[in-house]
C-alpha cells in the first residue's frame, strides 16, 4: 500500500462516559474506496464526525497525508481537503440548487471553481436543469445528488459519505451508486458509510465492519456473495 491519505490510529471518542469508538485504526490509500458498515450505533457516523473535527478525540490520532488533524475545527478540515456528504443530506431547502452548490466552494482553496461547477453539473444533469429552483422542491434522490455535487465542487482529496442511500427508493439507490461509480473513475478517494452491507462490500475495495465502536473485521468484494460471512461479521 502506498502512503495513506487518511490514517486513523487508536482513535477513541466518548460521549460523556460512554465510549463510542474504541481503539479504532485503519487507513485509506489515495484512490481507494473504503466502506464502513455495521449496525446502528456501531460508531460509523461518529468516525466520520471525528475525522471532520466535529467531535473531540479522547485518544489516538487522525492524519491527512501525514498531517495531524486533531484540534482542527470542521471548517479547517474541510479546507484541508476532506468533504463530507452528511447523513440526511443537509441541503439548504430554501436556497436554490445553484446556491447550495456554491456553498460547497467555501472549502475550495485553489482556482477552478467554475470548472468544478461545470463538471458537477455534467455529472448530475438534473442539477443543471433545476439550477434556479429551491433545493427543497427536489426529490429525495435529486437532493442526494445535490449533496454529493456540493461536496465534489470543493475539489476534495477525500470524500466522506454518510449513508447516502438512507431513506431512498431502491431505484434511486441505483442512481446514487452509479454516481459513486463515476466518482471512483475520476480517482477521488472515498470513505463510504452505509447500511446496505452487500452492496457496499461488493462496491468498495475493502469494507470494515464496525460494532460497538470496535473494528470487527474487514471484508473484500468477493465476500459480498457470501451471506454467511456477512451475517457472521455483523453478529460476531
Amino acid at each position, binding site marked *: 500500500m502506498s502512503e495513506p491519505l487518511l490514517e486513523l490510529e487508536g482513535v477513541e471518542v466518548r460521549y460523556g462516559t460512554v465510549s463510542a469508538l474504541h481503539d479504532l485504526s485503519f487507513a485509506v490509500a489515495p484512490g481507494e474506496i473504503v466502506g464502513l458498515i455495521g449496525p446502528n450505533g456501531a460508531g460509523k457516523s461518529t468516525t466520520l464526525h471525528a475525522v*471532520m473535527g*466535529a467531535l473531540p478525540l479522547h485518544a489516538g490520532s487522525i492524519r491527512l497525508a501525514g498531517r495531524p488533524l486533531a484540534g482542527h*475545527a*470542521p*471548517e479547517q478540515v*474541510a*479546507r484541508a481537503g476532506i468533504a*463530507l456528504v*452528511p447523513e440526511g443530506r*443537509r441541503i*439548504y*431547502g*430554501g*436556497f436554490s440548487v445553484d*446556491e447550495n452548490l*456554491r*456553498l*460547497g*466552494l*467555501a*472549502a*475550495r482553496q485553489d482556482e477552478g471553481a467554475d470548472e468544478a461547477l461545470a463538471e458537477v453539473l455534467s455529472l448530475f444533469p438534473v442539477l443543471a436543469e433545476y439550477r434556479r429552483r429551491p433545493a*427543497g422542491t*427536489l*426529490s*429525495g434522490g435529486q*437532493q442526494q445528488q445535490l449533496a454529493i455535487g*456540493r461536496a465534489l465542487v*470543493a475539489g476534495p482529496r477525500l470524500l466522506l459519505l454518510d449513508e447516502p442511500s438512507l*431513506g*431512498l*427508493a431502491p431505484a434511486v439507490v441505483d442512481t446514487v451508486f452509479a454516481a459513486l461509480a463515476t466518482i471512483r473513475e475520476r480517482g477521488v478517494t472515498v470513505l463510504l458509510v452505509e447500511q446496505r452491507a452487500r452492496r457496499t462490500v461488493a462496491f468498495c475495495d475493502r469494507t470494515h465492519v464496525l460494532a460497538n465502536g470496535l473494528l470487527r473485521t474487514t471484508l473484500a468484494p468477493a465476500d459480498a456473495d457470501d451471506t454467511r460471512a456477512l451475517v457472521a461479521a455483523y453478529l460476531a
Partner: protein
Amino acid sequence: MSLVAAVDAQTLVDAVGLGAVYALMAVGIGLVFGVLRLVNFAYGQLVMAGAYTLAFTSAWPAAASIGACFAVVLALSLALERSVFRPLRTQSPAVMLVTTFAIAFLLQSVALVLDVRDGTIGEAARSLGGLNQAVSVGGVDVRKVTIVAVVVAATALGLLALLLARTTIGLHMRAAAADFRTARLLGVQADRVIGLAVLLSGLLAATVAVILTVQSPLVAPDFALKETIFVLVGVVVGGLDRLWTATLGGFAIGFASGVINGALPTDKTVFLPSAVFALVILVLLLRPAGLFARGPAVERV
C-alpha cells in the same frame, strides 16, 4: 369614529419614521441572532454609546462627529464579539442572554460615570439640529429627520439585502443562520461570518444613534433602552428565525406605537406601552409562532 379621526396624515408620517428606526434596530439584533442564536439585549447600549459620542463631540463638524460615533460603536461591537460572544458561543442561549443583560447594565453604569454634566457634554450633533426643522409635503409637516430616517433605513436594508443575496460572504451568512453545523462542515469560516454579522449590526446601531439623537438630543444613560425593549418584542412578534420577518416585526411595532401615540390624548400617552403590549399579547395569542410563521417543514424522500 374619534380614534380614526385622531390618526391623521401627520401621525402616520411620524409612525413610518419611527417604524424605520425600529426596523434598523431589528435588523441589527436579527443579524447577530441569525449566526450566534444570541439575543443581544445590550444592543440599545451600543446605540447609547454612539449617542454619548455624538454629545461629547458636539462642537466638532457634523461629519467628524458622526465618524467618531461610528468608530466608537464599531470598536465596542467588535470588542464585545471578541471578549464575550466568541468565548460564550457554545453556551446555552439562556447563559448568553443573561450575559448580554450584564453587559447592558455595565455599559449603562459606565455612562453614568462619564455623564458628569460639567459642560463638556453638549447637545448631541448640534450641527445636525437643522434636521429637526419641518418641511411641508402635501400639506403635512414632515421633520427632515423623518425623511432622512426613512431614506437611510430603506438604503441600508436594500444594501444589506444585496449583500446577503449576491455576495459569497452573504451566502455564507445565510447558510450559517439556517444551519451553522452544516455550513462549517462545508468550509464556511465561523469566525469570519460572525465577525461580519457583528460589524454590520454595529454599523446599524451607529446609524440609529445618529437618527435618534437628532430626534431627541437629550442623551442619558437609559438612552435607547425603551426602544430596544420595543424592538425585541417586535422581532419576537415578527419571528426571529428569519431576518425579513424580524425586520417587519420591528417596523410593525414602531409603526403601531407611533399610531397609538398619535391617537392617545396628550395626557394619556403614559399608557402607550400598555396599549402596545396589549396588542402584542393579542398577536401572540392568535399566532404564537409569530406574525409571519410558516408551516412545518416537510422531509423529501
